[in-house]
């Protein structure tokens, strides 16, 4: 990256100061997590997609390290260093550089070195209230920085999870569909498989083993698998045990005996993932979809509506916000509410800010139990560009 004009550096610093002033005034403690992070832990929680864009290096002691590709995981680590159980409520804000390799070369909207200003709130028990508070504060910060016009895009993985829970199907199918939610192609393929009796039965497990495996007697399965491997001369090398292999084979045996997902249920799921509407209409549209199935998403829909009400009360105009069920983020760790602030000048692929709820991440980083967490971050170079400051 060529050196930045001094003018732009100053403009970014002044902007960061305003953003942090907004955050600290709202009682978010300012922190400065380390830029250099242990690669192993980081790469385990962010997944291979972001890993491919993370600068990883080895220090003279042979330790694998990385330049942080975002500040959320470093903030989780800092929180756990202070509170190993993670369950002490805390609110943090930060401003600092993050680094991502940009395939095809960095651009002004997608630089390889950029500054994030963000907030994270941990262990607050009223989730909707905290979701709304984090979004409202993010909006307040970009407004105070000078951004007058922007569009708000919302999503809610809680609704999707509730829909799957309401439809009768084995728990492992729900887990698979949830897992593939971020990848539309794989998701559609899995849905097609679950609705087809042939596809559920047509797996390559040896007949003798498949017939012997009884989903109602899982305790017998590891021995059956070990016996089969021995008779077939297959040596079990590596980390996985016969127990693990048996677990998946049992699921396959159960799938083969399972009633396929009714095509009406698959149509409903597809109808939901295609749902795109003004946020205030989304709940009613979803209810209309559910009507013929006599399904009720109860608490999840109430939470969705309550969050919108809380946002309204915080001065966010939810009537102009759009909701998209398939609203995708390239980070896999979101688990509930998600949002993005986009501007027409930069387009939907370069949001000025974004965030959401990630209730699994602290546990993935080392907390003994799941800890509620929601956060947001502002892409400060994009914000500055939209505001026309520090002419590059």
């Amino acid at each position, binding site marked *: 990256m060529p050196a930045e004009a001094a003018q732009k550096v100053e403009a970014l610093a002044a902007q960061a100061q305003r953003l942090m002033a907004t955050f600290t005034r709202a009682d978010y403690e300012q922190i400065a997590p380390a830029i250099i992070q242990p690669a192993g832990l980081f790469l*385990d929680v962010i997944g*291979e997609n972001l890993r491919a864009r993370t600068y990883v290096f080895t220090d003279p002691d042979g330790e694998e390290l990385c330049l942080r590709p975002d500040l959320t995981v470093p903030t989780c680590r800092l929180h756990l260093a202070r509170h190993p159980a993670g369950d002490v409520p805390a609110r943090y804000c930060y401003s600092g550089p993050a680094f991502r390799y940009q395939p095809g070369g960095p651009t002004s909207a997608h630089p390889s070195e950029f500054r994030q200003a963000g907030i994270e709130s941990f262990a607050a028990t009223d989730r909707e209230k905290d979701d709304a508070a984090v979004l409202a504060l993010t909006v307040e910060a970009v407004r105070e920085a000078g951004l007058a016009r922007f569009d708000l895009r919302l999503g809610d993985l809680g609704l999707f999870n509730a829909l799957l829970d309401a439809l009768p199907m084995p728990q492992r199918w729900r887990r698979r569909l949830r897992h593939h939610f971020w990848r539309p192609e794989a998701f559609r393929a899995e849905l097609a498989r679950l609705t087809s009796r042939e596809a559920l039965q047509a797996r390559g497990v040896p007949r003798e083993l498949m017939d012997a495996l009884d989903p109602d007697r899982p305790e017998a399965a590891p021995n059956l*698998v070990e016996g089969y491997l021995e008779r077939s001369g297959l040596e079990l090398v590596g980390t996985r045990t016969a127990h*693990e292999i048996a*677990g*998946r084979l049992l699921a396959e045996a159960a799938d083969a005996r399972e009633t396929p997902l009714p095509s009406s249920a698959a149509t409903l799921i597809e109808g939901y993932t295609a749902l795109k509407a003004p946020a205030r209409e989304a709940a009613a549209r979803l209810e209309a979809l559910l009507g013929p199935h006599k399904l009720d998403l109860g608490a999840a829909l109430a939470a969705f509506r309550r969050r919108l009400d809380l946002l309204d009360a915080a001065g966010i105009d939810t009537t102009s916000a759009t909701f998209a069920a398939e609203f995708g983020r390239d980070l896999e760790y979101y688990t509930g509410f998600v949002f993005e602030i986009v501007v027409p000048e930069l387009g939907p692929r370069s949001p000025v800010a974004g965030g959401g709820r990630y209730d699994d991440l602290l546990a993935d980083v080392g907390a003994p139990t799941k800890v509620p967490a929601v956060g947001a971050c502002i892409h400060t170079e994009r914000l500055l560009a939209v505001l026309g400051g520090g002419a590059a």
Partner: protein
Amino acid sequence: MSGHLILALPSKGRLMEQCAALLERAGLTVVKSGPARGYKGEIAGLPGVEVNFISSSEIAQHLKNGTAHLGITGEDLLRETMADCDERVTFLHPCGFGQTDVVVAVPAAWIDVRQMFDLEEMALNFRRLHGRRIRVATKYMNLTRRFFAHNGVTGYRIVESLGATEGAPAALLAELIVDITTTGATLRANGLKVLEDGLILKSQANLVSSNGAPWTPELRNLEREVAARLAV
């Protein structure tokens, strides 16, 4: 050297011998020359061509940067080095040697994992049980990432392996591997099997032209001459 057509050839091993034999049969006899300890050469009877002997993996890098006009190296190394391989180089002639398959291989005892599809779900279970992602040992980090992403497999980590990759699962350094195989014998000897849809690339040595090299009409004529003789 400016004004010359730079032809990059493997500097050692069987690949070097096979390249020399291939060119010889086409009437392009490579003669080592110059003081650079045998790392330079020319082609008898075809002035204007400068041969550089370089390690196979670096040949791809030179073709990518345009510091060689032509080169012979494996398609696996070319595609690993360049994500946009087909834009940066032009494949002129498959050489008929150096055949190898880049494949995804897992322990043969994993009778519950037969396709890439199974891998993703297995990875999910593995993470729940072991608290970490499955590890893939490979020296083909980019080919692996592209192929896994294309197949919707995400729950893994790459562990870079620069030799004896097939031993990584047994040594508990990785759960599975992406590696090259010709007959599959080495994989079998290490208790591994190739996934049914785990063929990433059928590779062989290729004569390749760099799109980014400093070309002149004269050099293009020389390129056509070399390609035409090989094509016979």
